[in-house]
């Protein structure tokens, strides 16, 4: 079953990694790339969060998974490419 559509990370992969390493959500994201895809984690962020917290307690001092700038994908040409470096 696919949890992260953009990176095609399956539920089995996530649970196995979470149990093996006892990861926090951010670590689970770093290990499996779930949440790093083109959509910025919009589809799978909550699922990755809850899968990680099914095996380890929530550590409130840790930063949670959140939307990272750029909020929407942006091309380098828009950031200052030839022609629109206004």
């Amino acid at each position, binding site marked *: 079953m696919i949890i992260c559509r953009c990176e*095609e990370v399956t539920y089995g992969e996530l649970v196995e990694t979470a149990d093996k390493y006892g990861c926090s959500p951010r670590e689970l994201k770093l290990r499996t790339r779930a949440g790093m895809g083109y959509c910025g984690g919009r589809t799978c962020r909550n699922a990755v969060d809850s899968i990680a917290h099914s095996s380890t307690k929530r550590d409130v001092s840790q930063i949670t998974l959140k939307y990272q700038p750029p909020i929407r994908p942006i091309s380098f040409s828009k950031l200052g490419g030839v022609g629109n470096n206004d």
Partner: protein
Amino acid sequence: MTRRIIHHPVLDRIDETDTVSFTFDNKKYKALRDESLAAALLANGIRTLRHHEEFGTPRGIYCNIGHCFECRVTVDGVQGVRACLTPIQEGMDVTSGDKLLTSVRDWRANNE
């Protein structure tokens, strides 16, 4: 053009006469003006808008409201255009994304 809902019980009737033509992967198709690109392709029976860059699995409309980017296509050379949010214009040239030549996901696996 029979796949569209013309007489919607709530929304008003769709004007079927105002059609524009556009090309998708070098094939000509007909669509209604200002319809979303995703809807136009769907009405023409095309559900696969792109293939996953890494695994090549076919992808199409998912959220249809501009969040998930599953429907991103290249319109007139501009990449990452969301088909579900782009209104159709006359003579639009749309190309679908394909699997990339080299895998970029896990370089350690094939580079060590």
